[in-house]
């Protein structure tokens, strides 16, 4: 009895098995495929490129648990980056430009949420529209121009180390870890997370139990916008320049991370730990492929295949188990009838 309890306590949460398995296999595959793969300094440094995706995925986890979706995150990022670039080009100090970018992200996220809630429209349609709208806004603001020449002190945030030496600890990774812990506690400990889950699993019954469903959903959209604004600042610092197609397609990568991490795309279920492990898994897959000189198309294909498998395998397994149980019950019933 106690031993059974023990194994249960140490059992791996089921939503983590898929991404953890992918992470481990990718690490082995990469190490076998290239002598250069298992270089701690490179691995840690290369995380810098994925942190924006990771932060967007953290915020999207809340939105998706609510049963909503935000397809516009990369466009919010671009629009925020454009506001930042325009202000900088006009001579505004870089700190104010960065704050303006974060604020822009927050406002655009609020607009998403307000349209969804006030007009009762599906977030898929609303954010599909704002995906185009905010990107269009970016193109109007920046046209074909490039804003570069950001101050030295601002550029290269991703190459800065929080802890120096070898292998070192880069700033973006530190930001991501802190953000993950904050998001984890919001979702797990604070009532807000519970509300999210309730809203996602059954919005109308949650509403009738006296909970303001709309403010829960609205705050998730606002948070998603705010995080997109923060990512705009980070990506601008990393690239040292701004153009209108910045971050194009990032929303799909971020949503992939969330879904791979076991969050139900229909809402009601999801964890921050799942999203974090899924980000690590995707990072490992991409890095293990790119170090072996495998081209972009194949990398995209591999991620797609893994996503399908992660979602499909548990479904197939439970279908098989269900089927077996049904047969068992059927046989029991048959034998009972026979006994009579």
């Amino acid at each position, binding site marked *: 009895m106690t031993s059974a309890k023990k194994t249960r306590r140490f059992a791996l949460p089921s939503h983590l098995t898929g991404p953890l398995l992918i992470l481990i296999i990718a690490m082995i595959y990469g190490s076998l495929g290239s002598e250069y793969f298992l270089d701690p300094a*490179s691995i840690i440094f*290369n995380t810098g*490129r994925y942190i924006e995706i990771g932060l967007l995925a953290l915020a999207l986890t809340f939105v998706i648990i609510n049963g909503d979706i935000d397809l516009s995150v990369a466009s919010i990022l671009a629009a925020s980056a454009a506001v930042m670039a325009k202000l900088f080009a006009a001579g505004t100090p870089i700190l104010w430009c960065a704050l303006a970018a974060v604020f822009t992200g927050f406002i655009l996220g609020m607009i998403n949420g307000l349209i969804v809630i006030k007009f009762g429209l599906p977030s898929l349609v609303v954010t599909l529209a704002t995906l185009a709208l905010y990107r269009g806004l970016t193109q109007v603001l920046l046209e074909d121009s490039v804003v570069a020449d950001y101050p030295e002190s601002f550029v290269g945030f991703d190459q800065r180390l929080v802890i120096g030496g070898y292998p070192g600890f880069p700033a973006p990774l530190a930001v991501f870890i802190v953000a993950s812990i904050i998001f984890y506690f919001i979702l797990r400990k604070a009532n807000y997370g519970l509300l999210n889950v309730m809203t996602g699993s059954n919005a109308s019954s949650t509403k009738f139990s006296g909970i303001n469903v709309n403010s829960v959903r609205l705050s998730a959209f606002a948070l998603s916008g705010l995080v997109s604004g923060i990512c705009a600042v980070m990506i601008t610092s990393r690239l040292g*320049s701004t153009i209108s197609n910045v971050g194009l397609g990032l929303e799909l990568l971020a949503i992939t991370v969330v879904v791979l991490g076991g969050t139900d795309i229909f809402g009601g279920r999801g964890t921050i730990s799942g999203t974090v492990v899924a980000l690590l898994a995707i990072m490992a897959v991409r890095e293990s492929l790119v*170090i072996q000189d495998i081209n*972009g198309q194949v990398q995209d294909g591999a991620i797609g295949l893994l996503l399908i498998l992660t979602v499909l395998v548990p479904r197939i397994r439970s279908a098989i188990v269900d089927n077996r149980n049904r047969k068992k019950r059927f046989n029991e019933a048959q034998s009972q009838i026979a006994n009579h």
Partner: protein
Amino acid sequence: MSLILAGLSVASVGPANAAKKKYKVTYIPKNLGNPYFDAIVGGFNKAAKKLNMTVKVVAPAQAGATDQIPFIEAAIQQKVDAIAISPNDADALCPTLKRAMRAGIVVLSVNGDTTASCRQASITPTDFSVLGQYLVDQTAKLIGDKGDWAFLSATSTAPDQNAWLAGAQKYIDGGAKPNMKLVATVYGDDQPEKSATEAQALLARFPNLKAINAPTTVGIAAAAQVLSTSPLKGKVVVTGLGTPNQMRQYVKDGTVKSFSLWDPGLQGEIAANLIVQMKTKKLKPKQGLKFSITGVGPGSWTMGKDALIIAGPPQEFDASNIDKFNF
């Protein structure tokens, strides 16, 4: 047994190269599955066979500004000797390319440039500053320096084409080809249907039209397609800039006599050779530096401002040579 193997490997490498280090080069085109960049890769491979070099080609699925960054970082991690890149963006790759140079890697841009401080030298396919003039002369040669002609360009805002058209106009205003009259410049927006419609409209509006010059690969193919089924085939000249693969059928059926572009492969050959010279001869690219490669293109080059290298003059294609090119 091991002695025989050792003997064999020395024989296959050649005694002079046996002791030398094999250079590792990564070339990153804008994207894959593009015959134009395949031709550049062909140039790299052709040169690598003669040099002591392995060339790897990797590219992202999309041509987004930042999509090449993971491939540059992987090359740094693999400690390659050189990275050659056809950049998708002049600025966004800068921090990563600078990191590569700090790691002691030779960085060249090929067929497109980044900010000058982010690479050591840049190879450009041809001298675009005289291309406008070239387009006028190209047309003149085909119509005997005389008659009405028109431009069928890309979009009215295309920066490359607009620069060439301005160059052509300046050349004409300066008194070149006085018996030729540029009657119109129309825009096909680099869409096949729109370009074909514009070409048809030119033929209808100007009955004395002798030539259409389309300095865009979409435009020239559309104009050739219109002419190939028109009674004016063989009477009105179509020329400009196009790729051999798109234009082959129109050259074979006599619609088009000759057209031009440049030889993209030449850039790959120059890049591969330059990398080896930078490594072995400690060549430091800068304005005014001369270098030569025997048996490749013009054979010798002088670097321009910011170590810019012009690969060669435009390449003319006609029935006699078109089958030698595949892009």
